């Protein structure tokens, strides 16, 4: 599956929709994560977005994101 940013935004985790986030071109499905309930994470981040820049400021590395399955790639 290849998604544009606009298409990715539809997977916002709200109202039962899957919660997808992009990191370095890959799209992860975080729907099953307790800390991504309703598509929100730590009051600061929303699903359906490219979090590559945000992760650089996060108090954790990409290893936590790698726990979630990759379901696609982000279109250039």
């Amino acid at each position, binding site marked *: 599956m290849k998604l544009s940013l606009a298409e990715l935004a539809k997977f916002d985790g709200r109202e039962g929709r899957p919660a997808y986030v992009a990191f370095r071109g890959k799209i992860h499905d975080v729907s099953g*994560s*307790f*800390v991504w*309930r309703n598509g929100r994470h*730590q*009051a*600061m981040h929303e699903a359906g977005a490219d979090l590559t820049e945000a992760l650089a400021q*996060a*108090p*954790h590395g990409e290893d936590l994101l790698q726990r979630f399955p990759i379901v696609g790639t982000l279109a250039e």
Partner: protein
Amino acid sequence: MAKVAREMVERAGVNVDQLLELLVCNAAAELTTYYYYTILRANLIGLDGETIKEIAEVARIEDRNHFEALVPRIYELGGKLPEDMKEFHDMSACSPAYLPDDPSDIKAMLTVLVEAERCAVRGYTNICNLTAGKDHRTYDLSLSILHEEVEHESWFSEFLGEGPSGHFMRRGETSPFVSKFLR
């Protein structure tokens, strides 16, 4: 609510509503962890379990203290706790520290405990980063909690063999860093 206190934080450039949500999410994590650690503690039996029971108990009590210390700051800044306990549970900043499928598996128990503490360390580091030099009181509170969470992580991590160990159990009262917020 402390009107000027909130105004000072806002003027310093902090998004207070976002900060409040973070504080409530972390307060939820503390109270739920206190609850789940109660169940873990009850299952820490036998030679291996009893060995870590005391530090699990200290972490449990200190996590409850963290909840107690966070609540006044939430209200000072104009926030509040949800009226519904279920809603509060589900907004926790950390995943529930459930009892492992096999409660006699002490390594699995320690993994639950250390993962909970690591989540807390990340959370309070984040709050410290957001408030440093801007919201002195929340920063001081979060840093005090962070000191204790880092020690909790070290205790459990070292029991998992991630050493060498530079830490010892509490000597004296619990919450040496946070107690000033509990008086």
